[in-house]
């Protein structure tokens, strides 16, 4: 049992090593193919980073989203305090600032210079206002809308006003971009499969005599196919690494100008690179796509190569 497993591992190790050796012996062709596939993979990867960075940049704007809740004029200051406490208890709410009618009047009197006119009114014309700031999670368009409805349903509430609606629109645009990204990833993935497939097809044609002789001495289709599958998977892996490298270089080049731009707006925003998990996904996906391209082509072509044909 151990011996069989060892031989199985040995067989695969041999196929992997000889495939790697073959790629290394044709550096020019290998580099060209890898560049094509690496740049192809870099495009969706870069788009993904763009979306993520825009999202985290606008995450900093979540402070710009606010909800102003105007209460009916007959709501007392005590009642307003109680409503503010209720609003604070709601999830998705980071901060609630109550400006009671009395406080508002006081402030208006001080700052506007219309103090005398207000005296003449007799009663306080200003309502109490709750200024609500959502949490980062609560700043998503759907969450904000939910909160708005919740507040508007209170009987003491006169009206609810959203501030910073442009942020919500921007989030919607990001969502569209994210969809575009998925589409692009699918298309470029298909491109990688096609490029690997074509590379493997040429390789099969080049190695036809070897394939024939191997089949002649009793090599099975699986055995003949194995090195090509490893070659495809290696192409995919190296291309994914190349894509990552391209992205890393692009990030380095953009880091300084982006930081300067952010500083001009008083932000400490910095470009984020791909996380370890994302790098893992890209390397895994690249390897799989390479393997898939090789499998499709090898399964199709190898069945047709029989030693008796010549």
């Amino acid at each position, binding site marked *: 049992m151990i011996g069989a497993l060892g*031989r199985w591992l040995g*067989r695969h190790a041999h196929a992997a090593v000889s495939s790697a050796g073959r790629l290394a012996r044709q550096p020019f062709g290998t580099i060209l193919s890898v560049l094509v596939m690496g740049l192809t993979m870099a495009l969706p990867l870069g788009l993904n980073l763009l979306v993520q960075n825009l999202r985290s940049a606008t995450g900093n704007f979540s402070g710009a989203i606010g909800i102003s809740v105007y209460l009916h004029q007959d709501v007392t200051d005590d009642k307003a305090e109680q409503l503010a406490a209720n609003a604070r208890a709601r999830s998705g709410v980071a901060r609630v600032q109550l400006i009671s009618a009395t406080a508002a009047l006081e402030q208006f009197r001080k700052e506007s210079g219309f103090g005398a006119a207000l005296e003449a009114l007799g009663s306080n014309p200003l309502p109490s206002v709750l200024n609500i700031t959502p949490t980062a999670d609560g700043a998503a368009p759907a969450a904000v809308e939910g909160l708005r409805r919740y507040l508007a349903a209170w009987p003491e509430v006169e009206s609810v006003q959203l501030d910073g609606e442009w942020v919500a629109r921007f989030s919607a645009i990001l969502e569209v971009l994210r969809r575009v990204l998925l589409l692009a990833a699918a298309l470029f993935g298909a491109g990688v499969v096609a490029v690997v497939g074509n590379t493997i097809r040429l390789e099969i044609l080049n190695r036809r005599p*070897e394939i024939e002789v191997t*089949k002649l*001495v*009793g*090599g099975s289709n699986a055995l003949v196919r194995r090195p090509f599958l490893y070659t495809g998977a290696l192409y995919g892996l190296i291309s994914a690494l190349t894509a990552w490298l391209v992205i890393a270089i692009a990030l380095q080049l953009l880091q300084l100008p982006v930081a300067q731009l952010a500083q001009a707006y008083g932000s400490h925003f910095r470009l984020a690179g791909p996380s370890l998990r994302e790098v893992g996904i890209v390397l895994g996906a690249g390897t799989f796509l390479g393997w898939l391209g090789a499998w499709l082509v090898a399964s199709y072509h190898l069945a047709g190569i029989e030693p008796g044909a010549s």
Partner: protein
Amino acid sequence: MIYFDRVAKRYANGREALSAVSLRITPGEMVFLTGRSGAGKSTVLKLIALLERPTRGQVIVNGENTGKLPNRKIPAFRRRIGVVFQDHRLLMDRPVFDNVALPLLVADASLREVGKRVRAALDQVGLLGKEQLRPSELSVGEQQRVGIARAIVSRPPLLIADEPTGNLDPVLAGEVMNLFRRLNEVGVTILVATHDVHFVRESGLREIVLEGGVVAGSEESLPLPPLQAHR
């Protein structure tokens, strides 16, 4: 070991290479297959190695009916037959060692076993010490012997050879034929297709003559040997 019963082979291009060949080779025999070019010698060998399937009739090799063997069993079937070609079909970009080791590698032998057997096979054909050379660095006769080493390295019970001496001078041809005789003496069944009539007559071994798609001088049907069962 090899049994043909009224075997016909028509190729896709319409040429009928064999029309009704019946022959029988018993285990341990060494037999020559002769006949003019185009008489069907190569076709007989291709049918034995299952490079082709018969159009009509039965071909039974090592107890397997090749007309009915499922495709997935062809690799295992071929591993029990050593094949030597006139053009030797070596991989010119690989060292001698790799060429000879190929049948062992496809059969999953351990690496230690491979090294041992490859050296033993090269020793038998007199090429020990040339493992790391490429076939292009060898003479034609040496290349042919590498091809023979590859055919015998996995010790198949049956060896078939298509014009193995076709490119060799008489001295080298004699050496190759003697090599086959030595292999036959240790129990390998051997079928050699050749037009080297001189050596055939001198050897005193059985000769099957093909003529116009049939075996000359025998038309009778032969009794069927026992078959392996297939699901």
